[in-house]
């Protein structure tokens, strides 16, 4: 279970970061009538956060979580 536990911790932290980034007051910083790369900054910011968040979840889910301490698995010898 330690690997799952690690994964869970990472997901919770990512969730908190996402919830913070997509709410007041951080959101208010981008609430202005302005375009960047011809996209309104507020939309640009939200969609960027969105993409990064999905990327984060995908990485955590698909990469094997490294255990807390690197463990050496005993090598199994194939029976002759």
């Amino acid at each position, binding site marked *: 279970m330690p690997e799952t536990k690690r*994964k*869970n911790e990472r*997901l*919770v932290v*990512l*969730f908190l970061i*996402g*919830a913070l980034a*997509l*709410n*007041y007051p951080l*959101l*208010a910083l981008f*609430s*202005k*009538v*302005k*375009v960047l790369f*011809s*996209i*309104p*900054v*507020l*939309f640009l910011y*939200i*969609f960027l956060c*969105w*993409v990064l*968040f*999905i990327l*984060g*979840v*995908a990485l955590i*889910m*698909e990469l094997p979580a490294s255990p807390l301490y690197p463990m050496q698995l005993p090598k199994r010898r194939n029976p002759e």
Partner: protein
Amino acid sequence: MLQQWVILLISFCYLGVLFAIAYYADKRADTGRSLISNPYIYTLSIAVYCTAWTFYGSVGRAATAGVGFLPIYLGPTLMAALWWFVLRKIIRIAKTHRLTSIADFIASRYGKDPLIGGIVTVIAVVGIMPYISLQLKAVSTSFNVLHSFQGASPLAHGAGPFWNDTALYVALLMAAFSILFGTRHIDATERHEGMVAAIAFESMVKLLAFSAVGIYVTYSLFIGPSELISDAMYEPNLSRLMEFGALPGGYANWFAITFLSMMAIMFLPRQFHILVVENVNESHVRKASWLFPLYLLAINLFVLPIALAGLLMFPEGSVDPDTFVLAVPLAENQRGLALFVFLGGLSAATGMAIVETIALSTMVCNDLVLPVLLRIKAFQKRNISRVLLVIRRGSIVAILLLGYLYFRLIGESHTLVTIGLVSFAAAAQFAPVILIGIYWRGASRNGAIAGLLAGFAVWTCTLLLPSFAISGWIRSSILQTGPFGIELLRPYQLFGLTAFDPITHSVFWSMLANVGFLVGVSLFDRQDAVARIQATLFVDVFRHEGADTFLWHGNATVAEIKDLVARFVGPSEAARSFASYEEEEEPFDMRPNAQADANLIAFAERKLSGAIGAASARVMISSVVKGEALSIEGVIKILDEASQVIEYSHRLEEKSRELEAATAELRAANLRLKELDRLKDEFISTVTHELRTPLTSIRAFSEILRDNPGLDLEERQNFLEITVKESERLTRLINQVLDLAKIESGTAEWTRECVDLKLVILDALTTTSRLFLENSVTIDKELPTESVFVMGDRDRLVQVAINLLSNAVKFCESGSGRVTVRMDCQQGEARMEIVDNGPGIHPDEQTQIFEKFHQLKGLYNEKPGGSGLGLTICKRIIEHLGGRIWVESRPGEGAKFSVALALCKPGKEAQQKRKHSNIEAYIEPA
């Protein structure tokens, strides 16, 4: 403008394709090659979340509230990150207990109570009704737009007679599909593979259709997003959509809707159905938790461009923004594209309605109708598997017709988003009982009932009533004066709270009431045995898997159990499942008259639970199983005992660790004692030997003197001299032994005063000067010119100095021997060093030489002169005076003995004396 028959033909063809897909998937499932058993289909089926509301309403919302359409998709995105442990746990629980709906899940968690299942079902049906009507409204509106769009002319609203109403036929068509693919089997846990496949296909269609119109608008109608957006920026009406000010309710509303959609993605009955009940493999959650947000992102990319384009093309108010998706291509005469968009919207609406009605009909049947039916005598002994199917099909039709009714009565007066959010807020009422219920064992049945009812009541008052009022169905004055004229209960300003917009306001109050009552009542509630078992099984689902097999202890025959199951699932299905049970479990005895064992009863209960819900299944099983209904107390004991055993073993481990440590200490102490014992033995033999040597010589010389009176005077004198010396040596030895004994027992007398250490050393040198002369050892003095005062006992210090000096002499070579006495002050302490150039002390022995009775051996072959007590006495004295004594030496290079004592000022003598008197009183009880 399209011909009505064209639209209808295309729609029917499309629905035909859906039927074909569903039929094919069901056939595949029957042959065991599942079409839907992969995370991609699972993800697409979850996208049933995106309904007609998303398809048409998002653009409408973006056109009025700017970013306001986004939190409905950001919430699920955030929630998806938590699926890996929240959703997986729910899936595991539902699979273990064969739970088939959200009502079943909640009822099962709180003691399999039919009442809770009923409450949840009522909330779900009432809460979701607006949502279903929203789908009907979307389809009929889009049909009308497609059919009668005239450039930029306003839409003719207002419903004709119901037989001429598209929405009614849409509703009936959806009912037909739901019945065909949702109620094929009686066992609701058997997945509706065909339905899921069709839903996944619909999700693809709606994404493609929406993206198609988005790409067309952005890249064909305008040159690209940059042109579209820069055009919009020139219009003050449009540029205001780019910031937060456009969102009514501001950040609080944003947060509330994010929260609502987080809950909705898991606890809307259809989402629960797709996520949990239709889940094939819980590992699919892993991919879905990032693929699904990706889908949401994709379907939202073109919302803003379409909204801006619509606003630019149609002057203010001429076209309902909710229909922009269709109106824009139609205005450009892109009929094919418009038709494709219509199909996308149809997909979104039908997908939602089908899954929702299937989920709701299961709940209505199992948790509302059956508990009542089972109380009626006539039904108790009949085979009602047919009846079940009829009930389910009937409730599908009823639910869709109710949705249609809501649409006719109320739907016209609201935008899509408002209707949808009302349903979201209702679904959020399930979140506390589930989320708290699966992590907190203490959440009780009464708490759940109180929380659900309170939340539902607040929701009704703050959202449902106003929606009735706005549509003119009840008096609209209720908004100003409150229900029954109670102003405190005004729906949009409950208890005078005016800070929020209606949705945020309702979310705040309903969640406060819901969680407050759930937790508050639970804290003061006593749970009965069943509820406690269920709570434990839910919370610790990953620990006790299938643990309820030992629940039943009563008596029932195998035949009775089989009959019971057959009555609900049909004889052929029952026979098949019992056959597979016999094959897999290899039960002890399956003859009809044999006693059914606990495993078989549990299996039957799970099978029944799949068909009629956990609560009813429990009722039915207990009607057949007689005797001591079940050993619930025993189960509780087992569960409790298990946890107690774990706790005991933890404590035992701790104890044994402590014991191990204690044993190690004892072993060390024992070793030391043994060593001391050995030393004592040695000492006694040494002392007796030492005592005997002088005694022997005294006696020998005395005898010579006695027996030979004729000895000459000189010789006589000589012999007497030896006798006296030997007596002195004897006395010294005895004194030392007594001295040490006194110091050790704490009865020695100490004076404490400021002593000049230099004088002490000079005294000792004087005393030992003869010794140095006799042994021809040179003495070097390196003493400071002024006096150095230390606190101590003068006589004892002299004793130490003499001891160390005579020790040094003893180990010096006669003639070449050289002893240096050094004294100085370092870091507030006086230091005395006595260095010799003797053979040195082996490092192994350096720590031992201060121990009692230890004598250096092996340096000289002859016996060392001395009792082995000198250094021990020195150490005891110095330590008693609060100083330190140590040796530094290397073999062959002599030894250096050092003594360090704290300095003192001669004037403080009196003070110091007083200060030490306490300690002395303690050390030397008089």
